């Protein structure tokens, strides 16, 4: 059901979008760049989350824990070594290690236990971030994190202090990450994950060790959450404990629900919609969580396939009919 065959209109739109994103700094001001970076970061965060939900059938409420690991890991290193790449890599690896260890404890269970455990472990990381003042700065967090230059010794050194430069860095990194994940879900590994999602008992009878594959998927999701988190400190210059709180774990959940669980691009569309909706709601009321919750209820009860399902079920057939396109086979 997860579509992976290219459809010419979709591919064209995609290319147009990427070109547009590259010209964005010329076309729009700082606020739009800032928002776009956040959307890209949430996209990466949510794609990792959906690797678990849409592709493997596991619902994790603790991804924010790994996001925070990425953020704090990057921040701590940047405060000591002001160089962008090592910071980002440190954040990713830190999150990955946590995901591997906690994943080992979580994936052996039923999906309900798994959801509970991820929530608990995510909050465990939150409690660590909040209480361990000496390491994490406690509830004040870490401040004064530099937007360090992108340096590869001997080859290049690009100053990142302008938002435009950092925007391009984030854009390139996110596009690469998205591209890599696209490859992963359309590989034998990705198909096997979907088999695990569809029937755990059946796939054991094809020789697959369900636990191992789930652990790998969980770790990849953790790495992606870590990447998303690591991109944050140079942008905001601070990291605080709420990054690990379950209410932050709700964001990729929301974005994926909004955009659609069953497609690759769902989480990306959803990330965009999430920020648009949040932006609108916040202008009218400070109680935006209620609206978020109400939207979750509406989506679960009424539109489990998300926005992309409308796109696929209605819009694309209409376009095909209208323009006489035939899908490639």
């Amino acid at each position, binding site marked *: 059901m997860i579509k992976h065959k290219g459809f010419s209109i979709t591919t064209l739109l995609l290319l147009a979008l990427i070109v547009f994103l590259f010209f964005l700094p010329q076309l729009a001001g700082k606020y739009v760049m800032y928002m776009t970076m956040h959307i890209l970061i949430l996209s990466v965060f949510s794609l990792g989350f959906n690797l678990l939900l849409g592709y493997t059938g596991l619902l994790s409420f603790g991804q924010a824990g790994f996001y925070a690991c990425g953020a704090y890991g990057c921040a701590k290193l940047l405060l000591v070594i002001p160089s962008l790449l090592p910071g980002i890599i440190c954040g990713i690896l830190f999150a990955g290690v946590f995901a591997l260890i906690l994943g080992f404890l979580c994936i052996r269970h039923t999906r309900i236990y798994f959801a509970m455990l991820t929530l608990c472990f995510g909050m465990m990381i939150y409690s660590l971030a909040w209480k361990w003042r000496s390491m994490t700065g406690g509830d004040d967090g870490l401040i004064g994190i530099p937007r360090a230059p992108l340096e590869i010794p001997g080859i290049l050194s690009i100053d990142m202090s302008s938002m435009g430069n950092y925007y391009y860095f984030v854009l390139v990194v996110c596009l690469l990450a998205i591209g890599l994940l696209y*490859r992963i879900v*359309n*590989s*034998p*590994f990705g*198909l096997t994950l979907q088999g695990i999602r569809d029937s755990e008992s*059946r796939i054991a*009878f*094809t020789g697959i060790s369900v636990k191992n594959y789930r652990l790998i998927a969980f770790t990849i999701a953790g790495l992606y959450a870590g990447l998303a988190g690591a991109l944050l400190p140079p942008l905001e210059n601070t990291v605080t404990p709420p990054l690990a709180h379950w209410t932050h774990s709700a964001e990729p959940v929301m974005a994926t629900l909004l955009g659609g669980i069953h497609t690759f691009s769902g989480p990306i569309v959803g990330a965009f919609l999430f920020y648009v909706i949040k932006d609108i709601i916040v202008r009218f009321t400070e109680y935006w969580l209620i609206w978020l919750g109400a939207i979750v209820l509406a989506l679960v009860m009424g539109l489990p396939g998300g926005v992309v399902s409308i796109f696929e079920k209605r819009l694309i057939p209409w376009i095909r009919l209208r323009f006489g396109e035939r899908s490639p086979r």
Partner: protein
Amino acid sequence: MSKLLRTENLSKAFGHFTAVDSVNIHFTADALTSIIGPNGAGKTTLINLLTGSLPMDSGRIFFKGEEITKIPTNERVKRGIGRSFQIMNIFPMLTVFQNIQIPVLSFLNKSLKFFSRLDAHGEVINEVERISKEVGLWNKRELLAGELSHGDQRLLEMSIAIASQPELCFLDEPTSGMNPGERVKILENIRRLSKERRTTFIIVEHDMDVVFSLSDRIVVMHRGRVIADGRPDEIRENQNVKEVYLGEELEEEII
């Protein structure tokens, strides 16, 4: 003929109910065996124990001479045991092609490849094509498994099982819920695969016509024990078997 699968005092109880009672049984290659018996005799439980879907209370299992008692299901599959399910167990949200692709990838040890494209593996595609043409599902390969007819789903069920090229394959009520036309198709496939491949089928069935026409050997279970074991003609004449089935009929009449 060497014993492909052998058990020693296999037992399983659910609370006070003994489902499988100290069963010693063996299966040899190239003898299509049916396991029959009244409802609750323990047939499916036995299959679950042999394939590793259920943990046993006591006993040992040997496959091709090696003990597999503690080995998990997916490891047993890698050694050559396969199974289809009584209750439909396919991958409903994937296409027929993908359903067969998954076990083929696993068999060729390619499941872990996360960086290569699916359609880059030519030998996998060829093998999936071969299997789906064998069972007659090739022209339905792009359909979602969940949307197939019951009979086609059963065929798919079996294809997934044989795609791993097992030496010993358990089929749990392969014809249940099928109309006569579909039943013929499945039986043809079982007969053909039994002859052409090196797969030994062990079938759990209720339909006596199927059992007596297909089997080289019949095992009869009752209340968790094996009460008869032999060629179809021997079983037909067996007093114990008659009593057990007749007894069942009598009970049904009284109720």
